[in-house]
């Protein structure tokens, strides 16, 4: 029983980080219908920015992390203003392909600036300091990441559901033209969403880096898992992304423990396929209908 609990706790810890990645993907998707394949690389770039500020400039963690989130947000918004918006004639698929291009550019830039060697990311919480509770072990870092993840999720939910800005974001996501007619600055809302989603990515990267170690490809697996979590929870639903991340983390961990560790990675692909076949709107998503 303690073993099962250990698998569940491990799954929740990693699942909260999948959820953060998924939230960034979903936030952008529900506003612009663009699946951002550069999300993982934006997150990595943001994490490296924080790393540079922590190690080269030796700034405190709080300053480095905040500045990195801000800079990544600016980068995301700039990407919308200078690349996505000028390409407004392109189809949705075209925009998605542009994000793939951005992913390659960011990956190249990260490699050129910081090299490919694996690095230790300095973090105020310890991975080796652990708490034991009736046979279950959890590290200080996991507890901290889980808590920060929950706070960020709650904050984002509050922003989207209970502020005028969130209302504007929801309006744009439902009908861009009508929102524009009603005086909502659509371009600014899009840029803000890009910025917010990118910052969320950087936050997940900063929380993941001490666990996964830092290199230009660290987000390859978490991005895939975040994507699977978004599909599982409902790619249109923010609570769905959060629940999807946690469920995926736990299911994956228990699957590895009791069924097959070899097919653990394959599981997320199977989940994507199963959800798309059985319930395409995901666990908490609503069936997507468009008026014609």
């Amino acid at each position, binding site marked *: 029983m303690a073993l099962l609990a250990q698998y569940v706790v491990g799954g929740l810890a990693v699942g909260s980080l999948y959820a953060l990645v998924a939230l960034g993907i979903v936030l952008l998707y529900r506003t612009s219908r663009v699946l951002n394949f550069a999300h993982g690389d934006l997150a990595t770039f943001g994490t490296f920015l924080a790393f540079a500020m922590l190690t080269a400039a030796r700034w405190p963690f709080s300053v480095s992390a905040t500045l990195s989130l801000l800079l990544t947000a600016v980068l995301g918004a700039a990407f919308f203003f200078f690349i996505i918006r000028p390409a407004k004639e392109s189809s949705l698929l075209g925009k998605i392909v542009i994000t793939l291009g951005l992913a390659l550019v960011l990956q190249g830039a990260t490699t050129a600036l910081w090299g490919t060697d694996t690095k230790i990311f300095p973090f105020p919480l310890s991975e080796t300091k652990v708490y034991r509770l009736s046979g279950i072990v959890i590290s200080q870092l996991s507890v901290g990441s889980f808590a920060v993840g929950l706070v960020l999720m709650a904050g984002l939910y509050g922003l989207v559901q209970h502020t005028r800005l969130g209302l504007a974001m929801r309006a744009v996501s439902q009908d861009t033209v009508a929102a524009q007619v009603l005086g909502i600055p659509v371009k600014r809302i899009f840029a803000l969403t890009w910025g917010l989603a990118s910052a969320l990515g950087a936050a997940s990267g900063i929380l993941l880096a001490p666990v996964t170690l830092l*290199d230009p490809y660290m987000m390859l697996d978490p991005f895939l898992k975040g994507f699977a979590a978004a599909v599982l929870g409902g790619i249109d639903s923010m609570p769905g992304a959060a629940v999807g991340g946690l469920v995926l983390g736990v299911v994956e961990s228990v699957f590895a423990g009791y069924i097959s560790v*070899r097919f653990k990675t394959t599981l997320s692909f199977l989940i994507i396929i199963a959800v798309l076949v059985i319930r395409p709107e995901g666990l908490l998503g609503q069936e997507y209908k468009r008026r014609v």
Partner: protein
Amino acid sequence: MKTASRLCLVVALLVVAATGAGAQSQERGVTDTEIVIGSSQPLSGPAAFWGQGVGGGMDAYIRMINDRGGINGRKLRLVLRDDGYSPTRAVANVRELVERERVFAIVSLIGSANAFAVRDYIIENSVLWVTPTADANMWAGFRNKKYLFVTYPGYVDEGRILTTYAAQKEGAKSVAVFYQNDLYGQKGLLGIKRGVAETKIKLAGAVPYEVTDRDMSGHALKLRQSGADSVILYATPTQGALIVREMAKIGFTPKLFASFTLADPLMFQLAGDAWNGIILTAYFPVPGVGDVKVDGMLDALLKVNPQLRASPFNALAGVSFIEPFVEAVRRAGPNVTRDSVVRAFESMKNWDGDVIRGVTFGPNQHQGINRIYIIKSENRQYKKLTDWITYPVGF
């Protein structure tokens, strides 16, 4: 019309004759002033750390050779291609290197799965291939190895030696294996199984991972569940560091053993205290343990490319792959052809480079080294535990 056809035929025949004559007089990739060599490495992707270190080490070494005037008046030119550790990209790269870049030889090429994917093409096209950075045991029984020369250990031999050492010298009773789920890890696992068969040790479990996996919590629990008193690692530096950290976190502290692929001093940083006491193998003298030639080579490499400081062992490994080739070209003299270089390779008897030592080739021996030794990490340094341990020459 008939006259035009005849004219075309004559022109075509002349072209064929001219190119044929050219090919006879000119060896592919060799001119009076340079020799072109190619390599495909994971310069990006999950194994980029290996590729950048090895590729960077080879490049720096070649620049050193060229700065000294090259070999018999010819400079070396390295064409490096990135395969991202993907076998399909390695195949495309090798085809490009051979058909478009027309390289004289391919040196290294990291990854057992990648080497496996390109080996038929390279062998069929009679390309000189020096030390594929892949399990050397894959070549035993493989035919047409005239142009293949290897100074890299086999993971099967290594796994067997590491396991028998664990059982006989370290008192291990049961081992679990953490391995990469591709040819690299699988060959290591095969060697460990052979070691298990030779000793009274028990194989308690084998836990695979995919090269993109980053969450190792489940893997660590599985290893603990196996009840093994020792764990052997066949992993990349990232996953190797992650698993030992994760095991330490859950309070599982078995005796640790690992392949030489994890011998880079970077592991002291990545894995921290959890790397203390781990036992590994090595096939050339590790830097910083008092070998003057290896330490001197590392200093020289760092002068050419200071970034190699991030992966000194891998940079030296890159040199170890290309050193015998440079020596063979030197021995071949001014007339550099594939056959003259093959003859030069086959004349090497117990040859020592600055990094690789004791290289012996012959007409019936293209496996240049057949020995490793055991090292142990102590206080962030490696200490030699044994003298050379030899294994049978396989090809």
